[in-house]
């Protein structure tokens, strides 16, 4: 792996996005708008919205980063650029980590902007305050990025990549404790949610919602999500094949 080539890949992806301002705008505008809509869906239930909003702050960047990274990397695979790069003296890690840096940074900005809207404009009360909430949201956005990079390897068309969203993300959304407490679900679903990363992201958001201090459970949740991020990035690198 070469730092020069990894950073060159990041710069190249940044340049591509720079030439596509509409995508950038949507990346930063859509989550705050959705959060604002949610506020008015729960307009007479401030307490409910205060509990849900931090979790959504994690879920929105995750789903958006998942979709964007899986489509962008799939485009590399289908347009011939990845084939060409793989005949060059470039490590597969340079490619994957180059992408991870860009979308990790964008995820950070997205969480920051959405968090700012949530705290200052929508007036959401989160016990732990701004910083722990944003840290948890950024790590969740990184999770979306890494899962998108990994799973795009298994899609041969953009239609398939988009369908990984209902196939892979939605089951996690349904069982992560966002809608129903996990202990009230059927036992097999609890087992399932125990091994899925989104469960720990949402749990981290619950920790920041309910505790003023940074808890050891919050650290534990973020470490688990971090392990999933690194694991998905390594698997994403492995699934890039130089040879078919």
């Amino acid at each position: 792996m070469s730092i020069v080539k990894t950073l060159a890949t990041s710069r190249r992806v940044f340049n591509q996005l720079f030439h596509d301002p509409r995508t950038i705008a949507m990346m930063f505008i859509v989550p705050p708008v959705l959060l604002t809509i949610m506020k008015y869906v729960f307009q007479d239930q401030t307490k409910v919205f205060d509990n849900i909003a931090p979790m959504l702050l994690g879920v929105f960047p995750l789903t958006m980063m998942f979709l964007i990274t899986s489509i962008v990397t799939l485009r590399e695979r289908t347009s011939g650029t990845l084939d060409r790069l793989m005949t060059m003296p470039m490590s597969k890690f340079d490619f994957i980590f180059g992408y991870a840096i860009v979308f990790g940074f964008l995820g950070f900005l997205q969480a920051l902007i959405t968090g700012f809207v949530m705290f200052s404009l929508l007036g959401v009360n989160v016990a732990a305050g701004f910083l722990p909430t944003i840290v948890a949201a950024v790590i969740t956005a990184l999770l979306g990025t890494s899962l998108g990079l990994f799973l795009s390897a298994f899609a041969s068309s953009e239609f398939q990549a988009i369908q990984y969203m209902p196939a892979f993300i939605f089951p996690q959304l349904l069982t992560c404790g966002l809608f129903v407490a996990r202990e009230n679900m059927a036992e097999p679903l609890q087992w399932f949610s125990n091994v899925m990363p989104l469960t720990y992201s949402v749990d981290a958001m619950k920790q920041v919602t309910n505790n003023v201090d940074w808890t050891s459970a919050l650290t534990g949740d973020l470490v688990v999500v971090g392990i999933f991020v690194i694991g998905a990035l390594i698997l994403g690198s492995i699934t890039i094949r130089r040879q078919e």
Partner: protein
Amino acid sequence: MATSVKIKNLSVFIGKHFKALDDVNLVLPVGKTIGVIGPSGAGKTTLIRCIVGGLHISQGEIKIFGKHAGSPELREQLSYMTQELSVYPDLTVMENLRYFVTMAGKSKKSADEIINGVLTDVDMTNRAKNLVRNLSTGQKQRVSLAIALIGHPKLMVLDEPTVGLDPVLRDKLWKLFARLARGGTTLIVTSHTMDEAERCDDLVLIRDGKVIAHSTPGELRKQTKSKTVEESFLKLVGDKE
């Protein structure tokens, strides 16, 4: 004569039953323009993807400059232009070239010189700041070729590099290929048009995954008592059927 590519008993299956290449044996020289010529679906792209190490070989072996195809050591010695454009449409020509120069392992210091050189070679200097998506198909093709020219590789593998180009530019590029070959570069160029075959130093005629002839254009015409390579090809195909 020095050998660039040596292919021994190469067979490739696509899926379980389709034999895309069938017992191919070739010894290709160094410093020549080698045309891999055949109709669509003949196995040209499969053959060159095996040469660049992008395809698993079911049977046989390929050695390039004495090393197995796909060896990491070969990555600095060869360049590959795929049939797809394999450039980033949402980057400028310059940004594309700068990225691939870095990926080819060239220093930042030499980047400008390399980029100016390849842009001149493909006659795209005045388009350097244009977004690739705003270029015509032929211009995009030239950007893709410019990337393959980066760093003077010992072996250039070009899959249909002249498709969609006007006759003047095609002529220019074939003259560039000849100049590169004179400088010691080996070029493997696929094409399905027989008029381009006449411009190659060495020809591999391929059909249904089998090599039906390997010779210079002159020898081929002589052997088949034909006036053109196209006529030779048709006679050879007729003989096999």
